[in-house]
């Protein structure tokens, strides 16, 4: 019973969006007749929220004929209702008032992504009065949807203004109190919206003395205030819906990015994390620059054209769902297998066509024949499926090829293996200096990452002489040394010499060269690329979660603060009241997270029956972006 409720935040947000699009009347599927045609107006925030969840086709099914940005030039469409989905900022309100004055639409359904303040509401009222359009404003809603859901169990706070809540914003030395307050307020607002949508009041645990603690305090306060206000409480029984677990409450673990800086820098080996690390991937869309004409260009005569292609990696994509956490060679293999099974099915259909003597005709004509209908109907009905499969195979072939190119060019497998060894403190077979000075292996950034991981995980700092040597090697390779400065100071400041060092035991077993696995005709010729098998290891975040969820005693987590917004007395005690292990947990990383941690959590929870984890972070970055931020964030020396 408890398992179903928090299962899919994606589903909940989608349902909320669909309800909003249906004029905030619960959406009944399979309702006959056509929907009311309407126009959807959104700002960039709304766009980011809607785009991973609803495709254009689904919008059309809900009756949206036109979807437009708020701040674009819009023509009046006088007899159509308009649904607005915007953030309640000054400029948005101004633009909406202007729309009201210009009488653009027949009726207005205003939905604010997070709660709107009373004064701004009065501004709109003023404009509506002036335009005598008060009756046209049919409904005004606070949607509490101020977060972006990327996966069934993963969410991010925002995409548009992520500089506001980035790692850099939170950790830069010259931040003022008021700025910090603003950042914290933004994060807390989004988390609050998240819990409203989830329909549960969590128990909050966080470490002391970090930004996460500030977030926890504020969030606790906000939840508490809302619960006390019995009239307007968002968490009353009737709004929570069926399946609400009344016995168990979820656990919210707030961690700060600073407890583990190695994971964002880590080279990775799972499909989704690789795509995020190596290609341009955000909001479930990957943008590839393809150089077409490679296979069929005659001896270098034709120049390579670069097309930009973008693909959406959605939950509908079964291959992606199955393999996004698999190690890359497995992915390559699976693509190959899928391709082969697809070809077999295609041959089957072609054979049927030739039997019927309809070689070369399109599939639509096949349905006209009456004999052998059973075979034909089955073949025909499986055709859309086949076409879809082909599309997915093409997609993943392209994506995996792009990833593979990067891997081969930068020797990412070598880096991955080496980093794993560093993080698990097994003996290193190759000296770090060798790798850094190797001109073939990796970009300067890769080398920087490797060195930083080494530096972070080292029990004691390397000696000055060694450090100088490394620095020289790095600068020779072309790296900027600013991140190193930052990490040094971070390490000194954090006093966390013990914690990040233990990444658990892991061994990576290279399975030799892989070329034999790839059959002829395959595009994944992974010669020279090691087939590394990941053994389960627990990243620091996972470990912390494990301790807290299972109520294990551990010096690392024992002094975590404990907040329960439902308790009458406000003060926290470090002694948790609840002694039972939690079934649901939400891990939120203040300062940024990435897919490696997400994957790690998913793997961890797979082993536990009946437990669910949601992973969220204030922003999602890959190593490149993280290094860029760190470069600019030097602590005051």
């Amino acid at each position, binding site marked *: 019973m408890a398992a179903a409720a928090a299962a899919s935040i994606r589903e909940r947000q989608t349902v909320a969006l669909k309800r909003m699009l249906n004029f905030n009347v619960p959406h009944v599927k399979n309702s006959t007749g*056509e929907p009311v045609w309407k126009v959807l107006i959104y700002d960039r925030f709304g766009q980011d929220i809607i785009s991973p969840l609803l495709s254009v086709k689904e919008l059309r099914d809900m009756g949206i004929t036109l979807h437009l940005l708020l701040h674009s030039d819009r023509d009046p469409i006088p007899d159509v209702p308009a649904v607005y989905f915007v953030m309640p900022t000054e400029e948005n309100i101004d633009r909406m008032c202007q729309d009201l004055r210009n009488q653009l639409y027949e009726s207005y359904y205003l939905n604010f992504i997070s709660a709107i303040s009373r004064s701004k509401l*009065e501004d709109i009222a003023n404009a509506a*009065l002036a335009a005598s359009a008060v009756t046209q404003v049919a409904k005004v809603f606070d949607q*509490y949807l101020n977060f972006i859901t990327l996966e069934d169990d993963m969410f991010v706070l925002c995409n548009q203004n992520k500089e506001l809540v980035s790692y850099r914003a939170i950790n830069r030395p010259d931040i003022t109190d008021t700025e910090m307050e603003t950042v914290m307020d933004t994060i807390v607002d989004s988390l609050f919206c998240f819990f409203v949508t989830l329909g549960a009041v969590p128990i909050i645990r966080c470490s002391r003395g970090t930004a996460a603690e500030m977030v926890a305090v504020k969030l606790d306060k906000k939840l508490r205030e809302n619960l006390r206000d019995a009239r307007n409480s*968002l968490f009353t029984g009737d709004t929570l819906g069926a399946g609400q677990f009344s016995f168990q409450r979820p656990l919210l673990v707030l961690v700060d990015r600073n407890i583990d800086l190695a994971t964002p820098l880590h080279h990775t080996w799972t499909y989704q994390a690789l795509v995020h690390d190596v290609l341009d991937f955000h909001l479930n869309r990957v943008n590839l620059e393809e150089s077409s004409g490679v296979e069929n260009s005659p001896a270098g005569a034709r120049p390579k054209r670069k097309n930009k292609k973008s693909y959406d990696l959605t939950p509908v994509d079964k291959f992606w769902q199955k393999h996004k956490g698999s190690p890359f060679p497995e992915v390559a293999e699976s693509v190959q297998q899928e391709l082969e099974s697809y070809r077999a099915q295609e041959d089957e259909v072609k054979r049927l066509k030739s039997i019927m003597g309809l070689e070369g005709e399109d599939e639509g004509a096949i349905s006209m024949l009456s004999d052998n209908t059973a075979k034909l109907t089955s073949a025909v009905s499986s055709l859309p499926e086949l076409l879809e499969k082909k599309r997915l195979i093409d997609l993943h072939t392209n994506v995996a090829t792009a990833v593979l190119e990067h891997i081969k060019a930068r020797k990412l497998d070598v880096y991955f293996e080496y980093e794993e060894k560093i993080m698990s403190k097994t003996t290193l077979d190759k000296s770090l200096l060798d790798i850094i000075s190797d001109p073939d292996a990796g970009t300067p950034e890769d080398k920087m990452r490797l060195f930083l991981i080494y530096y972070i995980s080292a029990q004691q700092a390397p000696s000055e002489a060694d450090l100088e040597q490394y620095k020289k090697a790095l600068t020779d390779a072309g790296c900027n040394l600013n991140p190193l400065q930052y990490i040094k100071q971070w390490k000194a400041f954090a006093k966390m010499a013990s914690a990040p060092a233990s990444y658990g035991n892991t061994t990576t077993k290279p399975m030799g060269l892989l070329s034999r696995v790839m059959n002829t005709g395959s595009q994944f010729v992974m010669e020279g690329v090691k087939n590394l098998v990941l053994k389960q290891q627990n990243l620091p975040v996972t470990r912390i979660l494990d301790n807290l969820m299972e109520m294990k005693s551990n010096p690392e987590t024992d002094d975590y603060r404990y907040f329960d917004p439902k308790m009458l007395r406000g003060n926290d005690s470090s002694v948790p009241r609840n002694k039972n292990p939690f079934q649901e947990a939400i891990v939120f990383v203040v300062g940024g997270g990435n897919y490696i941690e997400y994957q790690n959590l998913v793997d961890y929870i797979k082993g536990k029956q009946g437990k669910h984890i949601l992973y969220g972070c204030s922003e999602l970055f890959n190593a490149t972006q993280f290094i860029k931020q760190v470069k600019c964030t030097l602590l005051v020396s």
Partner: protein
Amino acid sequence: MAVDITLLFRASVKTVKTRNKALGVAVGGGVDGSRDELFRRSPRPKGDFSSRAREVISHIGKLRDFLLEHRKDYINAYSYVMSEYGRMTDTERDQIDQDAQTFMRTCSEAIQQLRTQGVCKLYSEQRAIRVKRVVDKKRLSKLEPEPSTKTRESTSSEKVSRNPSEDSEEKPVTEEHPEKVPAESQPELGTWGDGKGDDELSPEEIQMFEQENQRLIGEMNSLFDEVRQIEGRVVEISRLQEIFTEKVLQQEAEIDSIHQLVVGATENIKEGNEDIREVSTLGPPGPPQCGTESRQQRSSCWQGGTSALLWPSPQGSPPDGAGQSHFDPRQTPDPRCYQEP
């Protein structure tokens, strides 16, 4: 979990309403407020055609009056406080432009509605007024960048705008007035210039200003001429358009009648053909009674057949050009189409 704050919104609307009533309306807002009422009323003229037309005309007249009043106020204000005037006109001008534009838009919509009912004269007159007003506005806005001589131009332009709008119905008079205005404005400019010179300006500056005045007057004159020409052309164009629409309507009627005739003729010809055929197949006429009977029978059955031929299949729509149903993209496609093999 969405929270319905519609009630909160309605409550804020009420508070805003009461607050506005308590505070009253601001100075500039007064004019705009009443003009807003005008705008609210004008976009959706109801009732029959003539009352609508009259309403629109009265609105235009009211707008003109308000504009004039505005100018008067500002002129009065100027003679005491210069800086205040400068500030006000900027914002006011923008507001006025905006409002006037929306008003023009709504008026043109109303006029378009009126147009379809076939009274082209009034339409052409309104258009002429509107065009003149637009031209005036453009002229006014062109005069913005020279603050020191702003007032003088505004007085002269005010007179210009006043005159064409007052005599909108009588075009020849309109054309005369702009001629008088430059003459009037010149002595006025002279007095303005002298009045100003006493306080602040040195004699050289007075001379400079006067030269500038002369130049400006010359420019204004040329502008007036151009405007007059444009006015005349526009009026001609509107008249031609009116003639054009009349002709088109006449032709439409004629074409309809021709069409009817042709349909009748086709029918007659068909019947004639059938009769001829019948006569030729019958051969020499038999006993008169039987022959006529059989002929009548056959002609009647032929007629039935003819009408069947004329209206062959339900899919061919009767030739009625005017009665086409409006294409609605949401209509489900005709299920009969699918039945054909």
